[in-house]
Protein backbone atom coordinates (compact mmCIF):
# COMPACT_ATOMS: atom_id res chain seq x y z
CA UNK A 1 0.00 0.00 0.00
CA UNK A 2 2.82 2.39 1.02
CA UNK A 3 4.69 1.48 -2.14
CA UNK A 4 1.62 2.29 -4.23
CA UNK A 5 1.20 5.66 -2.55
CA UNK A 6 4.91 6.33 -3.01
CA UNK A 7 4.66 5.68 -6.72
CA UNK A 8 1.67 7.97 -7.02
CA UNK A 9 3.42 10.73 -5.08
CA UNK A 10 6.45 10.40 -7.32
CA UNK A 11 4.29 10.88 -10.40
CA UNK A 12 2.43 13.73 -8.76
CA UNK A 13 5.67 15.53 -7.98
CA UNK A 14 6.53 15.13 -11.65
CA UNK A 15 3.26 16.77 -12.58
CA UNK A 16 3.91 19.65 -10.24
CA UNK A 17 7.37 20.14 -11.76
CA UNK A 18 5.65 20.46 -15.12
CA UNK A 19 3.31 23.07 -13.72
CA UNK A 20 0.30 20.90 -14.44
CA UNK A 21 -2.78 21.40 -12.28
CA UNK A 22 -4.21 17.93 -12.19
CA UNK A 23 -7.94 17.91 -12.79
CA UNK A 24 -8.38 15.06 -10.42
CA UNK A 25 -7.26 17.27 -7.56
CA UNK A 26 -10.59 19.01 -7.95
CA UNK A 27 -12.51 15.79 -7.54
CA UNK A 28 -14.77 15.93 -4.59
CA UNK A 29 -15.02 12.82 -2.55
CA UNK A 30 -18.39 11.73 -1.33
CA UNK A 31 -19.34 13.35 1.90
CA UNK A 32 -19.86 10.96 4.71
CA UNK A 33 -21.73 11.56 7.85
CA UNK A 34 -20.02 8.61 9.41
CA UNK A 35 -18.22 8.62 12.71
CA UNK A 36 -20.19 9.10 15.84
CA UNK A 37 -21.74 5.68 15.24
CA UNK A 38 -23.87 4.45 18.05
CA UNK A 39 -24.11 0.90 19.12
CA UNK A 40 -26.79 -1.16 20.68
CA UNK A 41 -27.61 -4.79 20.68
CA UNK A 42 -30.39 -7.26 20.72
CA UNK A 43 -29.42 -10.62 22.20
CA UNK A 44 -26.41 -11.88 20.29
CA UNK A 45 -26.58 -9.14 17.68
CA UNK A 46 -24.43 -6.03 18.02
CA UNK A 47 -25.84 -3.19 15.93
CA UNK A 48 -24.03 0.05 15.05
CA UNK A 49 -25.48 2.80 12.89
CA UNK A 50 -22.56 4.04 10.81
CA UNK A 51 -23.84 6.51 8.25
CA UNK A 52 -26.80 8.48 6.94
CA UNK A 53 -26.77 9.70 3.33
CA UNK A 54 -29.24 10.97 0.75
CA UNK A 55 -29.56 9.67 -2.82
CA UNK A 56 -31.89 9.68 -5.81
CA UNK A 57 -31.65 5.92 -6.25
CA UNK A 58 -31.34 3.00 -3.88
CA UNK A 59 -30.01 -0.46 -4.46
CA UNK A 60 -32.58 -3.01 -3.29
CA UNK A 61 -30.77 -5.64 -1.28
CA UNK A 62 -31.71 -7.82 1.62
CA UNK A 63 -29.82 -7.77 4.89
CA UNK A 64 -27.25 -9.34 4.93
CA UNK A 65 -26.86 -8.12 1.36
CA UNK A 66 -26.31 -10.23 -1.74
CA UNK A 67 -25.75 -8.79 -5.21
CA UNK A 68 -29.32 -8.09 -6.26
CA UNK A 69 -29.26 -5.76 -9.26
CA UNK A 70 -32.64 -4.04 -8.88
CA UNK A 71 -32.68 -0.37 -7.97
CA UNK A 72 -35.49 1.86 -6.77
CA UNK A 73 -35.80 5.37 -8.19
CA UNK A 74 -37.29 8.40 -6.47
CA UNK A 75 -40.20 10.44 -7.80
CA UNK A 76 -40.05 14.25 -7.99
CA UNK A 77 -39.94 15.81 -4.53
CA UNK A 78 -38.61 12.63 -2.92
CA UNK A 79 -35.23 11.29 -1.97
CA UNK A 80 -33.89 8.16 -0.37
CA UNK A 81 -32.48 8.41 3.12
CA UNK A 82 -29.86 5.67 3.17
CA UNK A 83 -29.10 4.46 6.67
CA UNK A 84 -26.06 2.21 6.92
CA UNK A 85 -25.85 -0.20 9.80
CA UNK A 86 -23.09 -2.60 10.85
CA UNK A 87 -23.99 -5.91 12.48
CA UNK A 88 -21.93 -8.39 14.49
CA UNK A 89 -23.41 -11.75 15.31
CA UNK A 90 -22.20 -13.56 18.41
CA UNK A 91 -22.74 -17.15 19.48
CA UNK A 92 -25.55 -15.98 21.74
CA UNK A 93 -27.65 -15.03 18.72
CA UNK A 94 -30.68 -17.22 18.15
CA UNK A 95 -32.05 -16.87 14.60
CA UNK A 96 -35.59 -15.56 14.55
CA UNK A 97 -37.63 -13.58 12.04
CA UNK A 98 -36.88 -9.86 12.34
CA UNK A 99 -39.20 -7.04 11.33
CA UNK A 100 -38.09 -4.55 8.72
CA UNK A 101 -36.42 -1.48 10.25
CA UNK A 102 -38.27 1.83 10.30
CA UNK A 103 -37.28 5.45 10.81
CA UNK A 104 -39.00 8.50 12.21
CA UNK A 105 -38.47 12.11 11.26
CA UNK A 106 -38.38 15.08 13.63
CA UNK A 107 -42.20 15.19 13.63
CA UNK A 108 -42.33 11.50 14.54
CA UNK A 109 -43.72 10.50 11.16
CA UNK A 110 -42.65 6.93 10.45
CA UNK A 111 -41.19 5.59 7.20
CA UNK A 112 -40.67 1.98 6.12
CA UNK A 113 -37.87 0.44 4.17
CA UNK A 114 -38.31 -2.19 1.48
CA UNK A 115 -35.21 -4.01 2.74
CA UNK A 116 -35.80 -7.15 4.77
CA UNK A 117 -33.69 -9.21 7.12
CA UNK A 118 -33.08 -12.57 5.48
CA UNK A 119 -30.92 -15.25 7.06
CA UNK A 120 -29.40 -13.08 9.79
CA UNK A 121 -26.73 -15.20 11.44
CA UNK A 122 -25.56 -16.76 8.20
CA UNK A 123 -22.43 -14.56 8.37
CA UNK A 124 -20.72 -13.30 11.54
CA UNK A 125 -20.32 -9.68 10.46
CA UNK A 126 -22.06 -7.64 7.82
CA UNK A 127 -23.21 -4.17 6.91
CA UNK A 128 -26.53 -3.16 5.37
CA UNK A 129 -27.80 0.06 3.86
CA UNK A 130 -31.52 0.52 4.40
CA UNK A 131 -33.24 2.86 1.94
CA UNK A 132 -36.16 4.96 3.17
CA UNK A 133 -38.22 6.95 0.66
CA UNK A 134 -38.79 10.39 2.25
CA UNK A 135 -39.84 13.86 1.07
CA UNK A 136 -36.84 15.99 0.09
CA UNK A 137 -35.30 17.77 3.06
CA UNK A 138 -36.73 15.44 5.70
CA UNK A 139 -34.66 15.47 8.88
CA UNK A 140 -34.36 12.09 10.50
CA UNK A 141 -34.71 11.48 14.19
CA UNK A 142 -34.44 7.77 14.93
CA UNK A 143 -33.99 4.30 13.48
CA UNK A 144 -35.85 1.39 14.99
CA UNK A 145 -34.74 -2.22 14.65
CA UNK A 146 -36.91 -4.59 16.64
CA UNK A 147 -36.95 -3.06 20.13
CA UNK A 148 -33.74 -1.08 19.72
CA UNK A 149 -33.83 2.62 18.85
CA UNK A 150 -30.94 4.67 17.46
CA UNK A 151 -30.60 8.42 17.37
CA UNK A 152 -29.97 9.53 13.79
CA UNK A 153 -29.95 13.29 14.29
CA UNK A 154 -26.18 13.47 14.89
CA UNK A 155 -25.46 11.44 11.77
CA UNK A 156 -27.47 13.61 9.41
CA UNK A 157 -25.35 15.06 6.60
Amino acid sequence: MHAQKGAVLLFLSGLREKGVRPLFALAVTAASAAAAGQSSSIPGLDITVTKVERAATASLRDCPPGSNTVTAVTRPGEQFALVSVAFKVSQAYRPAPMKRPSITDTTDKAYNTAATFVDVGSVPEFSCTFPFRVPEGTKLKALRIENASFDLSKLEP
Partner: protein
Amino acid sequence: MEIDRRAFIASLGGVAAVNLMDHEAKADALEHYMEEKLDAGVAAQQPEKFPTVAEIEAQIETRPFRRGAGSVFTSSRGNVKILEKMPDKPTLHDFFRLRFAPANHVLQSATRAMKTGMSEEIILACLLHDCVLSLIKPDHGWWGAQLFEPYIPEKSAFAIRYHQTLRFYADDDAGYEYPDQYYRIFGHDYQPPQYIADTYKMLKNHKWYMEPRLVTVNDLYAFDPNAKVSIDPFEDIIGRHFKQPKEGLGFDNSPSAHMWRTLSRPDQPL
Protein backbone atom coordinates in the same frame (compact mmCIF):
# COMPACT_ATOMS: atom_id res chain seq x y z
CA MET B 1 -8.45 9.23 -5.68
CA GLU B 2 -7.12 5.71 -5.07
CA ILE B 3 -4.78 4.49 -7.79
CA ASP B 4 -4.33 0.80 -8.45
CA ARG B 5 -0.64 0.82 -9.34
CA ARG B 6 -0.73 -2.58 -11.05
CA ALA B 7 -3.72 -1.66 -13.17
CA PHE B 8 -2.09 1.62 -14.12
CA ILE B 9 1.19 -0.01 -15.14
CA ALA B 10 -0.70 -2.73 -17.01
CA SER B 11 -2.63 -0.04 -18.89
CA LEU B 12 0.70 1.30 -20.15
CA GLY B 13 1.85 -2.10 -21.39
CA GLY B 14 3.63 -3.42 -18.32
CA VAL B 15 6.76 -2.64 -16.34
CA ALA B 16 9.06 -2.94 -19.36
CA ALA B 17 7.04 -0.35 -21.27
CA VAL B 18 7.01 1.98 -18.26
CA ASN B 19 10.80 1.68 -17.91
CA LEU B 20 11.19 2.99 -21.46
CA MET B 21 9.18 6.14 -20.69
CA ASP B 22 10.88 9.34 -19.58
CA HIS B 23 9.67 11.23 -16.54
CA GLU B 24 7.44 13.60 -18.50
CA ALA B 25 5.77 10.78 -20.45
CA LYS B 26 5.03 8.98 -17.19
CA ALA B 27 3.47 12.09 -15.73
CA ASP B 28 1.38 12.56 -18.86
CA ALA B 29 0.29 8.94 -18.73
CA LEU B 30 -0.70 9.18 -15.09
CA GLU B 31 -2.67 12.35 -15.64
CA HIS B 32 -4.47 10.78 -18.59
CA TYR B 33 -5.18 7.62 -16.61
CA MET B 34 -6.56 9.55 -13.65
CA GLU B 35 -8.72 11.74 -15.87
CA GLU B 36 -10.20 8.61 -17.40
CA LYS B 37 -10.86 7.15 -13.97
CA LEU B 38 -12.43 10.39 -12.82
CA ASP B 39 -14.67 10.52 -15.89
CA ALA B 40 -15.70 6.92 -15.33
CA GLY B 41 -16.42 7.64 -11.67
CA VAL B 42 -18.49 10.71 -12.47
CA ALA B 43 -20.37 8.82 -15.20
CA ALA B 44 -21.15 6.03 -12.74
CA GLN B 45 -22.68 8.57 -10.34
CA GLN B 46 -24.95 10.09 -12.98
CA PRO B 47 -28.52 8.89 -12.81
CA GLU B 48 -29.28 6.43 -15.60
CA LYS B 49 -31.24 7.94 -18.46
CA PHE B 50 -34.25 5.73 -18.98
CA PRO B 51 -35.92 5.46 -22.39
CA THR B 52 -39.35 6.86 -23.15
CA VAL B 53 -42.27 4.74 -24.30
CA ALA B 54 -41.82 6.23 -27.78
CA GLU B 55 -38.13 5.29 -27.85
CA ILE B 56 -38.93 1.72 -26.91
CA GLU B 57 -41.64 1.54 -29.55
CA ALA B 58 -39.15 2.82 -32.13
CA GLN B 59 -37.07 -0.32 -31.52
CA ILE B 60 -39.80 -2.71 -32.66
CA GLU B 61 -38.73 -2.79 -36.30
CA THR B 62 -35.09 -3.30 -35.38
CA ARG B 63 -35.73 -6.89 -34.25
CA PRO B 64 -36.64 -10.07 -36.17
CA PHE B 65 -38.96 -11.17 -33.37
CA ARG B 66 -41.54 -9.55 -31.10
CA ARG B 67 -40.69 -8.85 -27.48
CA GLY B 68 -43.66 -10.87 -26.34
CA ALA B 69 -42.41 -14.15 -27.78
CA GLY B 70 -41.68 -16.78 -25.15
CA SER B 71 -38.03 -17.53 -24.52
CA VAL B 72 -38.21 -21.05 -26.00
CA PHE B 73 -39.10 -19.46 -29.34
CA THR B 74 -36.24 -16.99 -29.61
CA SER B 75 -32.54 -16.67 -28.96
CA SER B 76 -30.80 -13.57 -27.74
CA ARG B 77 -27.53 -14.85 -29.24
CA GLY B 78 -27.60 -16.39 -32.69
CA ASN B 79 -29.87 -19.23 -33.73
CA VAL B 80 -32.01 -21.27 -31.40
CA LYS B 81 -30.72 -24.72 -30.38
CA ILE B 82 -32.25 -28.19 -30.61
CA LEU B 83 -34.15 -28.79 -27.39
CA GLU B 84 -33.81 -32.02 -25.48
CA LYS B 85 -36.90 -34.19 -25.94
CA MET B 86 -39.29 -34.26 -23.02
CA PRO B 87 -40.06 -37.61 -21.34
CA ASP B 88 -43.32 -39.34 -22.37
CA LYS B 89 -45.00 -38.41 -19.11
CA PRO B 90 -43.32 -35.15 -18.17
CA THR B 91 -43.43 -33.82 -14.64
CA LEU B 92 -43.05 -30.27 -13.34
CA HIS B 93 -39.47 -31.17 -12.47
CA ASP B 94 -38.85 -32.19 -16.11
CA PHE B 95 -40.18 -28.83 -17.31
CA PHE B 96 -37.92 -26.99 -14.86
CA ARG B 97 -34.94 -28.97 -16.13
CA LEU B 98 -35.67 -28.92 -19.86
CA ARG B 99 -37.85 -25.90 -20.64
CA PHE B 100 -37.77 -23.35 -17.81
CA ALA B 101 -34.02 -23.67 -17.13
CA PRO B 102 -32.07 -21.98 -15.72
CA ALA B 103 -35.10 -20.62 -13.82
CA ASN B 104 -32.68 -18.87 -11.51
CA HIS B 105 -34.99 -15.92 -10.91
CA VAL B 106 -37.99 -17.97 -9.78
CA LEU B 107 -35.78 -20.22 -7.66
CA GLN B 108 -34.26 -17.15 -5.96
CA SER B 109 -37.70 -15.73 -5.41
CA ALA B 110 -39.02 -18.93 -3.83
CA THR B 111 -35.85 -19.34 -1.75
CA ARG B 112 -36.38 -15.89 -0.29
CA ALA B 113 -40.03 -16.64 0.42
CA MET B 114 -38.98 -19.78 2.24
CA LYS B 115 -36.24 -18.07 4.25
CA THR B 116 -38.60 -15.31 5.35
CA GLY B 117 -41.16 -17.81 6.59
CA MET B 118 -43.93 -17.29 4.04
CA SER B 119 -46.74 -19.80 3.52
CA GLU B 120 -46.29 -22.82 1.27
CA GLU B 121 -48.88 -21.42 -1.15
CA ILE B 122 -46.79 -18.27 -1.53
CA ILE B 123 -43.53 -20.19 -1.83
CA LEU B 124 -45.10 -22.29 -4.59
CA ALA B 125 -46.46 -19.17 -6.31
CA CYS B 126 -42.99 -17.59 -6.20
CA LEU B 127 -41.49 -20.76 -7.64
CA LEU B 128 -43.91 -20.73 -10.58
CA HIS B 129 -44.73 -17.05 -11.06
CA ASP B 130 -42.61 -16.37 -14.18
CA CYS B 131 -42.25 -19.87 -15.65
CA VAL B 132 -44.76 -19.08 -18.37
CA LEU B 133 -42.32 -16.53 -19.82
CA SER B 134 -40.85 -19.49 -21.66
CA LEU B 135 -44.15 -19.66 -23.55
CA ILE B 136 -45.32 -16.05 -23.78
CA LYS B 137 -44.55 -12.72 -22.15
CA PRO B 138 -47.45 -10.24 -22.44
CA ASP B 139 -50.00 -10.71 -19.65
CA HIS B 140 -47.77 -13.35 -18.13
CA GLY B 141 -49.68 -13.21 -14.86
CA TRP B 142 -52.89 -14.37 -16.50
CA TRP B 143 -51.18 -16.89 -18.79
CA GLY B 144 -49.12 -18.25 -15.90
CA ALA B 145 -52.14 -18.68 -13.66
CA GLN B 146 -53.98 -20.46 -16.47
CA LEU B 147 -51.05 -22.79 -17.09
CA PHE B 148 -50.83 -23.90 -13.46
CA GLU B 149 -54.42 -23.50 -12.26
CA PRO B 150 -55.51 -27.12 -12.73
CA TYR B 151 -52.67 -28.33 -10.54
CA ILE B 152 -52.10 -25.88 -7.68
CA PRO B 153 -53.99 -24.31 -4.74
CA GLU B 154 -56.41 -21.50 -5.58
CA LYS B 155 -54.39 -18.99 -3.55
CA SER B 156 -51.20 -19.79 -5.46
CA ALA B 157 -52.97 -19.33 -8.81
CA PHE B 158 -54.47 -16.05 -7.59
CA ALA B 159 -51.00 -14.86 -6.55
CA ILE B 160 -49.50 -15.77 -9.93
CA ARG B 161 -52.33 -14.15 -11.90
CA TYR B 162 -52.23 -10.83 -10.08
CA HIS B 163 -48.55 -10.36 -9.28
CA GLN B 164 -48.28 -8.92 -12.81
CA THR B 165 -50.67 -6.10 -11.90
CA LEU B 166 -49.14 -5.31 -8.52
CA ARG B 167 -45.66 -5.05 -10.02
CA PHE B 168 -46.75 -1.63 -11.35
CA TYR B 169 -47.77 -0.24 -7.96
CA ALA B 170 -45.45 0.49 -5.04
CA ASP B 171 -46.51 -0.52 -1.55
CA ASP B 172 -44.39 0.97 1.23
CA ASP B 173 -46.09 -1.04 3.95
CA ALA B 174 -45.40 -4.33 2.22
CA GLY B 175 -41.86 -3.36 1.21
CA TYR B 176 -42.43 -3.17 -2.52
CA GLU B 177 -40.73 -0.44 -4.55
CA TYR B 178 -41.39 0.32 -8.22
CA PRO B 179 -38.21 -1.06 -9.84
CA ASP B 180 -35.83 0.75 -12.16
CA GLN B 181 -35.99 -2.23 -14.52
CA TYR B 182 -39.59 -1.26 -15.33
CA TYR B 183 -38.45 2.22 -16.37
CA ARG B 184 -35.95 0.44 -18.59
CA ILE B 185 -38.29 -2.10 -20.22
CA PHE B 186 -41.57 -0.13 -20.37
CA GLY B 187 -40.25 3.47 -20.51
CA HIS B 188 -40.07 6.04 -17.73
CA ASP B 189 -43.31 7.67 -18.87
CA TYR B 190 -45.25 4.41 -19.12
CA GLN B 191 -48.76 4.31 -17.71
CA PRO B 192 -50.28 0.86 -17.15
CA PRO B 193 -53.33 0.28 -19.39
CA GLN B 194 -56.83 0.68 -18.02
CA TYR B 195 -57.45 -3.03 -17.41
CA ILE B 196 -54.36 -3.12 -15.17
CA ALA B 197 -55.53 -0.01 -13.28
CA ASP B 198 -58.99 -1.59 -12.85
CA THR B 199 -57.47 -4.86 -11.68
CA TYR B 200 -55.35 -2.97 -9.15
CA LYS B 201 -58.44 -1.23 -7.83
CA MET B 202 -60.15 -4.61 -7.41
CA LEU B 203 -57.10 -6.11 -5.70
CA LYS B 204 -56.73 -3.30 -3.17
CA ASN B 205 -60.03 -4.34 -1.64
CA HIS B 206 -59.56 -8.08 -2.02
CA LYS B 207 -59.06 -10.31 1.02
CA TRP B 208 -56.22 -12.06 -0.79
CA TYR B 209 -54.38 -8.84 -1.72
CA MET B 210 -51.26 -9.94 0.13
CA GLU B 211 -50.90 -13.19 -1.81
CA PRO B 212 -49.81 -11.56 -5.11
CA ARG B 213 -48.20 -8.69 -3.19
CA LEU B 214 -45.83 -11.08 -1.45
CA VAL B 215 -44.92 -12.56 -4.83
CA THR B 216 -43.94 -9.06 -6.01
CA VAL B 217 -41.90 -8.43 -2.86
CA ASN B 218 -39.85 -11.59 -3.43
CA ASP B 219 -39.75 -10.90 -7.17
CA LEU B 220 -37.97 -7.61 -6.54
CA TYR B 221 -35.12 -9.21 -4.62
CA ALA B 222 -34.52 -12.15 -6.94
CA PHE B 223 -32.16 -10.69 -9.52
CA ASP B 224 -28.85 -11.63 -7.95
CA PRO B 225 -26.43 -12.90 -10.61
CA ASN B 226 -24.32 -14.58 -7.93
CA ALA B 227 -27.09 -16.44 -6.13
CA LYS B 228 -26.71 -20.21 -5.95
CA VAL B 229 -30.12 -21.83 -5.94
CA SER B 230 -31.67 -25.22 -6.58
CA ILE B 231 -35.12 -26.75 -6.88
CA ASP B 232 -34.25 -29.39 -4.26
CA PRO B 233 -35.49 -27.42 -1.20
CA PHE B 234 -38.94 -27.23 -2.83
CA GLU B 235 -39.48 -30.92 -3.55
CA ASP B 236 -41.67 -31.38 -0.47
CA ILE B 237 -43.79 -28.31 -1.23
CA ILE B 238 -44.23 -29.42 -4.84
CA GLY B 239 -45.14 -32.89 -3.59
CA ARG B 240 -47.75 -31.53 -1.21
CA HIS B 241 -49.30 -28.87 -3.44
CA PHE B 242 -48.69 -29.66 -7.11
CA LYS B 243 -51.12 -32.27 -8.46
CA GLN B 244 -48.87 -34.03 -10.91
CA PRO B 245 -51.11 -35.82 -13.48
CA LYS B 246 -50.25 -39.49 -13.93
CA GLU B 247 -50.52 -39.12 -17.75
CA GLY B 248 -47.86 -36.39 -17.68
CA LEU B 249 -48.27 -32.63 -18.09
CA GLY B 250 -49.81 -32.01 -21.50
CA PHE B 251 -51.61 -35.33 -21.76
CA ASP B 252 -54.21 -35.15 -18.99
CA ASN B 253 -56.92 -33.25 -20.89
CA SER B 254 -56.75 -30.38 -18.42
CA PRO B 255 -57.76 -26.89 -19.67
CA SER B 256 -54.07 -26.01 -19.98
CA ALA B 257 -52.76 -29.31 -21.38
CA HIS B 258 -52.23 -27.74 -24.81
CA MET B 259 -49.99 -25.07 -23.26
CA TRP B 260 -47.73 -27.72 -21.76
CA ARG B 261 -47.62 -29.54 -25.11
CA THR B 262 -46.61 -26.32 -26.86
CA LEU B 263 -43.80 -25.88 -24.35
CA SER B 264 -42.77 -29.49 -24.94
CA ARG B 265 -42.69 -29.13 -28.73
CA PRO B 266 -42.10 -25.48 -29.65
CA ASP B 267 -40.65 -26.45 -33.04
CA GLN B 268 -43.96 -27.84 -34.33
CA PRO B 269 -44.95 -25.79 -37.39
CA LEU B 270 -48.68 -26.10 -36.67
